[in-house]
């Protein structure tokens, strides 16, 4: 096993320069999630208008996998309808199961496919996506 298989350059780039890290001024919803295995936390904020995610930002602490995943997720989800966002989340789950899926919207995400071979780290990669699902479910219910 080579570390480079997991920690690809694009992942380390998102880790070092996370996109959309911070807080929104006019968020519609904030979701706080913990990774109970390590105590890492994410606070995801979504700004939603007419059933679309207009903006997304995240804050919190995490490892390179969880932070880079959050960075990519917040990038790709902007401008997506609920259905489109949930479909992306589904596709990300498939990626974590080792299935061959593509992210034409943001190919960076495919770099996380290596996480599949590190079962203990899948929870790190899915944390922000779980926050997204939860946020959309809350919006759909309200």
């Amino acid at each position, binding site marked *: 096993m080579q570390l480079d298989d*997991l*920690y690809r350059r694009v992942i380390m780039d998102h880790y*070092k320069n996370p996109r959309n890290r911070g807080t929104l001024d006019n968020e519609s919803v904030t979701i706080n999630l913990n990774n109970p295995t390590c*105590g890492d936390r994410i606070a995801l904020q979504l700004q939603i208008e007419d059933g679309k995610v207009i903006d997304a930002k995240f804050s919190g602490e995490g490892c390179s996998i969880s932070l880079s995943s959050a960075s990519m997720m917040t990038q790709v989800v902007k401008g997506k309808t609920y259905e489109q966002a949930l479909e992306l989340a589904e596709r990300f789950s498939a990626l974590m199961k080792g299935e061959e899926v593509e992210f034409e919207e943001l190919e960076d995400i495919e770099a996380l496919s290596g996480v599949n071979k590190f079962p203990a780290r899948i929870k790190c990669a899915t944390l922000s996506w779980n926050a997204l699902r939860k946020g959309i479910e809350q919006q759909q219910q309200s």
Partner: protein
Amino acid sequence: MNVNAIREQFPILHQEINGHPLVYLDSAATSQKPRSVIDAVKRYYEWDNANVHRGVHTLGSRATEGYEAARAKVAAFLNASSEEEIVFTRGTTAAINLVASSYARSVCGEGDEIVITPMEHHSNLIPWQQAAKATGATLKYIPLQSDGTISLADVEATVTSRTKVVSMTYASNVLGVINPVKEVAAIAHRNGAVMVVDGAQSTPHLKVDVQDLDCDFYAFSAHKMCGPTGIGALYGKKSILSRMEPIEYGGEMIDFVELYESTWKDVPTRFEGGTPIIAGAIGLAAAIDFLQEIGLDHIHHHEQKLAAYAYEQLSAIDGITIYGPKEGRVGLVTFNLDDVHPHDVATALDSEGIAVRAGHHCCQPLMRWLNVSSTARASFYLYNTEEEIDRLAASLQRTKEFFGHAIG
């Protein structure tokens, strides 16, 4: 102590992980098991398996004898005054929950106090939180010194005549600190409180004498001391145990059952409702034999040497922070590398066959006290060597360089 000969007795250690010989540095989470323990459990299932305290048949007698002999072995191991003071449980967590749910809830009321420390594992913290909530008692914390130790002056200041229970870990699973539980027990008793000792991290590594400590309860798990998972024990002074009500009801623990009333067996069976963990108890007895043959003093000495060596080797790495005091620690070193998350450290080490723990170690309040969200931890046992610590230090150096380049 011949570490190579000891290593030979642990089948699991002789394998490669990711193309490297396994270096197992996570014994504080769970220890590995020697052949004698694995064989004892196997032999029980292959030859003696039956339910205990019921059958008149030969297998039933053998199983009962094995189970009760294990209880006597635990009693002697802890120097309890009789085997009636040993309750088999699922482990430390279940043992502490038994004390908190049965004893503490019956003696605590509004205005009473339960005293613990911020370094406790969740299993010696949440049961007391819940007991305090249920009874109206106040949960109080003995503060930590800057190096993570406690001072007896602070214990004196925190424990009062309203304190009913003082509970403390003998050795911290994060800081490695060994607490002065004997002295704390004396303070607790002077104030009319009972002393509960969480022995999960001490029993595998130190000679324990519950009569010398004069604690009222002592809890430990087999799986951290070369025994099977799913079994542990609670020691309790008989005078206290026999006043306690069971918290689980069913078979095994009853004396006489009528349609609307029942009575309980004497201690300790009263607290062992249902078919007990027979194979686990037999495996625990084999683990005690194994450790005693080597000698707890030798094991402790070996680990102290490893801990000191690891402290020295790891301190030499630029950008490392080691938590807890330098001296007086059990065999573990908890640390963080600057700018590398402990999860990433653990994955990088695993890629070279080295198993360490990363996370909050079931000590979230202590993590907040340390002002970190998580840490990495290397923990040692009788089968670890200085060469393994050299490999850890070299691998940490490479990890630092890898992430330094990757994000630098």
